[in-house]
C-alpha cells in the first residue's frame, strides 16, 4: 500500500486565499482564462478535481461549447480536455461594444491520481456549461468495511 502524506484538514492558507479572491474581485482580475504557461497558446479553462469514496470527479468550466467540439483523451495517468470554441459570424450592421468571452482553441492537461482505474468506463456529462467526468477508482483503492468481531 502506498504511503500517503498526512493531510491536515485545517488549511492555514484558506483565509489568505479568500482574501486574495476578494481583492481580485475588486479589480475583476481572474475573469479571463488566459494561457497559463509561458509558451502556452491555448486557453486553459478552470477545473476542479475532487475525490469521493469510490471515484474521482473532474469538473471543467466550458461555457458556450457544444458537445461535439470537446475532445477528451486519457493516456496512462494523463487526462487531456481540449477543443475549440467557435466564434460567431458577425453580420453586417452589428456592433460589438464589449467582448470578454474568448474564442479559439483550449486545452487542459492534468495528471490523475494513481488510484484512478483508466480501463474502466469513464462518464462524461456536459450540462449548463460544465463538463463533469466521473473516474472510478481501482478496486483495491476503494474503502472497505472491516468488521471487528468482539469475542
Amino acid at each position: 500500500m502506498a504511503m500517503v502524506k498526512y493531510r491536515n484538514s485545517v488549511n492555514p492558507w484558506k483565509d489568505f486565499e479568500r482574501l486574495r479572491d476578494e481583492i481580485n474581485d475588486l479589480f475583476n482580475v481572474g475573469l479571463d482564462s488566459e494561457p497559463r504557461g509561458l509558451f502556452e497558446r491555448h486557453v486553459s479553462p478552470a477545473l476542479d478535481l475532487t475525490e469521493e469514496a469510490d471515484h474521482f470527479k473532474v469538473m471543467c468550466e466550458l461555457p458556450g461549447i457544444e458537445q461535439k467540439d470537446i475532445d477528451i483523451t486519457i493516456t496512462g495517468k494523463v487526462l487531456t480536455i481540449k477543443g475549440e470554441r467557435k466564434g460567431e459570424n458577425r453580420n453586417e450592421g452589428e456592433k460589438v461594444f464589449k467582448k470578454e468571452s474568448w474564442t479559439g482553441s483550449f486545452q487542459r492537461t492534468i495528471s490523475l491520481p494513481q488510484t484512478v482505474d483508466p480501463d474502466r468506463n469513464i462518464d462524461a456529462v456536459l450540462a449548463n456549461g460544465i463538463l463533469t467526468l466521473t473516474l472510478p477508482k481501482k478496486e483495491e483503492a476503494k474503502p472497505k468495511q472491516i468488521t471487528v468481531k468482539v469475542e
Partner: protein
Amino acid sequence: METKDIEKREENKASVRSRCDVIEKPGEILLKLEMPGVSKEGLEININGDQLEIRGKKDPLKGEDSRYLIHEIRDADYHQLYTIDDTIDRNRIDAALKNGVLTLKLSLKESEKPRRIKIKAE
C-alpha cells in the same frame, strides 16, 4: 442600498461578475453572459426601473463528503447590475440559457428605431 449590502454579507457567499459580451444588432441589443454551472432554476432576472439585475446561483458541484485535489472554479454566485436607458422596451426582453451562456435580447422601442423618410418626387 445599505440593507442590501448587509443581506449580502449575511449570505456569506461571494458574488462575481460574469464575462459578458454586448452586441448591438439592428433593433435589438444582445447581452451574452457566461454563467457556467447555473441552471434555469438558479437564474433570476429582475427589472426595476432603469436597473437590470441578473443573479445566477450555481448548483453545488462538490458532494458533501468529497475533498478537493484541484480547486480552480470559484465558489461564487453571479451577480450583476446594468443600467438600461429609455430606448429599451421593458416588456420585450427575451432570455435564453444554453450551454451555460445566458443570452438576453433587449429590444428597442418601436419609436426608437431608425425610420427612413422618403422624398416624394414631384
